[in-house]
């Protein structure tokens, strides 16, 4: 046992304290870094096993050889981390869904007195005025413009809905610059980065290098890996599996996206149409190198994350709020509106016949009334009432330019020939007025305005549910995040305590040097 061995011990102590202070400063530096995991120094007493006697409690002084730096440990909590990722996917799904659903709600918000229901009310008020004064040209013109207003409301709602769809997934021609294609690109980008991080982790061979630089850089890689996975989970739902060498294998459902340091698949997205003409967006897995398709349709795996939300809101699931569902309801209403008015305007199947006016003072007893509401994209007159949707509904142009072509009169079929003067006959416009309160089987046995209220309220119900879910999910996520942060984050007070602690032990170790130095001086003086 020599004095110099004390000095060796003191030197080891200085090294360990210094490493600890470096670690503390790294922690303090990263106190606000998201995803940073606290590092701590593990140290232990060095015991020379060879010099131990049988009774381990009695240790010879010369068997003591100081302190050593075992490793620098990264705080982690893999189960909470996995839970956090799962909740993050769900949270990002709901936020994205809520954004899209809110824009659908804004479109179908009939409470703000500017929507379709107001146009419909005005239309029926105009019909009522026409009914009061069947031959009056002003009343007829008002009726036509009110009908045009209803049609253009349908048109603009339909356009806005398809615009929402377009901004999310693009259209049949292209999906570039749509939200989903940007997000798929981000996913692929993150996957590429993760693969290179995995490769770097293997290189630094995390957890076994005993130098502080080596370990902190390895810890930084693991932090980077985790924050990339966090980004990935906000786009698609993935499950992870940490391998013994520190790399991470990433699954989406049953598919491997990343296997250790090798990239398995990239995502790809394409649009097509289904049998009923709806736009269908399909996400597939492709080989990143060759581009060959490895799984044609993985939509069913993407149940969460913002891509999952985009797929749902542009999908056709009748149980979920989506663009095509609302468009479908709007189309049903548009075609019913057209068929109701056209039937009243042209129906001669009973014992009565509708009549238009040939001039300001005469009914037209020769020509049958034309249709009122038509498909503006129809190629021929014969098909003008076929396939009327909210997008193409319009007032027939000949009626719009000549409001006398509205059939307000309806006379007994046997009296048609003698009815030329009966311009005050308002039996047919009464039918139009009454259609406001009539329920129709094609509208699920509701009135037109009732159908619209239902539609608006249904969207509201869905949005309200999503909003509640998103609120709950956000607080769940905050809790998990808090828990994760609690187990892996940096507490400034803790670090400051450590700092002082290690500063003191550094000072004490330095004091050993000066003490040993004094001892050596004493020894030197002995020899004089």
């Amino acid at each position, binding site marked *: 046992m020599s004095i110099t061995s004390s000095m060796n011990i003191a030197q080891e102590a200085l090294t360990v304290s210094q490493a600890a202070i470096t670690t503390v400063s790294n922690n303090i530096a990263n106190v606000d870094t998201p995803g940073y995991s606290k590092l701590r120094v593990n140290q232990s007493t060095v015991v020379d096993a060879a010099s131990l006697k049988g009774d381990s409690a009695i240790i010879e002084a010369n068997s003591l050889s100081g302190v050593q730096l075992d490793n620098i440990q990264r705080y982690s909590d893999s189960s909470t981390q996995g839970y956090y990722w799962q909740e993050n996917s769900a949270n990002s799904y709901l936020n994205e869904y809520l954004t899209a659903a809110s824009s659908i709600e804004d479109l179908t918000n009939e409470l703000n007195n500017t929507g379709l229901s107001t146009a419909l009310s005005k239309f029926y008020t105009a019909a009522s005025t026409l009914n009061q*004064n069947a031959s009056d040209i002003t009343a007829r013109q008002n009726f036509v413009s009110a009908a045009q207003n209803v049609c253009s409301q349908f048109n603009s709602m339909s356009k806005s809905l398809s615009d929402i769809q377009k901004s999310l997934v693009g259209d049949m021609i292209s999906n570039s610059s749509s939200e989903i294609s940007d997000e798929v690109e981000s996913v692929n980008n993150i996957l590429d980065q993760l693969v290179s991080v995995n490769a770097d982790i293997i290189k630094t061979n995390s957890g076994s290098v005993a130098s502080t630089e080596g370990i902190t850089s390895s810890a930084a890689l693991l932090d980077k890996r985790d924050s990339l996975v966090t980004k990935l989970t906000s786009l698609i739902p993935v499950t992870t599996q940490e391998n013994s060498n520190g790399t991470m294998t990433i699954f989406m459902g049953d598919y491997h996206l990343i296997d250790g340091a090798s990239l398995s698949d990239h995502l790809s997205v394409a649009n097509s149409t289904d049998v009923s003409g709806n736009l269908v967006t399909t996400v597939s897995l492709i080989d990143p190198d060759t581009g060959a398709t490895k799984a044609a349709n993985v939509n069913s795996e993407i149940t969460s994350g913002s891509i999952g939300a985009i797929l749902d809101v542009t999908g056709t699931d009748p149980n979920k709020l989506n663009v095509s569902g609302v468009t479908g309801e709007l189309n049903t209403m548009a075609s019913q509106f057209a068929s109701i008015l056209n039937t009243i305007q042209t129906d001669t199947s009973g014992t009565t016949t509708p009549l238009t006016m040939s001039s300001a003072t005469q009914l037209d007893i020769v020509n049958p009334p034309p249709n009122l509401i038509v498909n503006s994209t129809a190629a021929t007159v014969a098909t003008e009432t076929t396939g009327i949707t909210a997008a193409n509904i319009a007032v027939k142009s000949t009626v719009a330019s000549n409001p006398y072509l509205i059939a307000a009169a309806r006379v007994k079929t046997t009296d048609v020939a*003698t009815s030329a003067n009966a311009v*005050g006959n308002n039996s047919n416009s009464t039918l139009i007025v009454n259609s406001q309160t009539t329920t129709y089987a094609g509208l699920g046995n509701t009135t037109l305005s009732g159908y619209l209220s239902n539609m608006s*309220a249904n969207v*509201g119900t869905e949005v*309200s549910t999503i909003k509640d879910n998103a609120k709950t999910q956000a607080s769940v996520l905050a809790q998990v995040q808090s828990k994760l942060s609690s187990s892996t984050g940096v507490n400034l*007070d803790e670090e400051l305590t450590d700092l002082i602690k290690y500063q003191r032990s550094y000072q004490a170790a330095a004091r050993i040097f000066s003490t040993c130095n004094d001892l050596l001086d004493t020894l030197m003086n002995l020899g004089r």
Partner: protein
Amino acid sequence: MRVTTLQTNNTMMNYVSSAESRYYELSQEASSGKKVTKPSDDPTAAKSILNINSQLSQLNSYLSNMSTAQNELDTLDSSLSNLTTLIGKATDLTTEAANGTYSSSDLKNMKTQVDQIIQSVTDTANTNYNGTYIFSGTSTSTPAYTTAASGSITYGGDSGTRTVTISDGTSVVINTPGNTVFGSYNSVTAAPVTAPTVPGDVAGTTSSTTTDAAGNITTVITTKVLSGTNTITTTTTGTGTGLLGTLMALSTSLGTDNQKDVGSCLTGLNTALDTVSTTRTQFAAVSNRFSMTKDSINSTVTSLTGYKSDLQNADLATVLADLAAQQTALQATLSTTSSLLNGKTLLNYI
């Protein structure tokens, strides 16, 4: 539990943002005065509000229908009231003429007055309200009666009815075809019974006029010729119905000093007066029905509007109280946050 610095920051941020968003919601509610501005705010209430909106718009159009129709009914009633006065005048003249003390010239004078009454009746029948001939049935652009040179007064309208919708599926007739009230008169001159005579070859003509109880007038003009015993008989038959038929018969009878037939016109005039009275009563009932329906619609509108406002409008007292409470909560959160973030760490003591 171990509390980390980032965790504290995040948690405080969450608290602040949720307090702020609640504060924002409440101030929106307070400034718009509405608690339901989007269907998702309260889907059930939203649906009720939308249904109420469409009901209110229907009810308002019924109200406007009735107020327009009421104006037409008022015109109709004043026309019929005018007609009652005219029939009264005609009855007075008839009673006077029938008592037999008047000379032929007096009767001619009376005929002139009756002819003026006929003219007034025709004018009344052609009453036009807002571009609509109200007594022409559905032929609203056609005058109800035209008087021809032959003396015929022909109904140009039809028997159609016009209706106004006053509640769901209920329509009320607001016109009466003119011919049921005013009747008509048709004068037809039949071809001479024997060959027409050479002009100037006339010895003299005699004419005789008879009216029957139905008001039909038959005028027979017999022409004797100089050249022989040839007699040419021209018969003009006036077929009348209703008020106009009676008045024409009266006019003809007065013109021909036929006091017996003058008396028989009284029955026709009384029948016409009955018809007018019945018609007026009928439309007075419609007016009553309008005003009752209006009252009931108005009270429905009031209660629906009240219900809608309950559903849609924010209770300002509650909202403002909540807002103040939320403001306090927000301030508390902010001050806690500020003291936590700016507050003491170990640094302050070492």
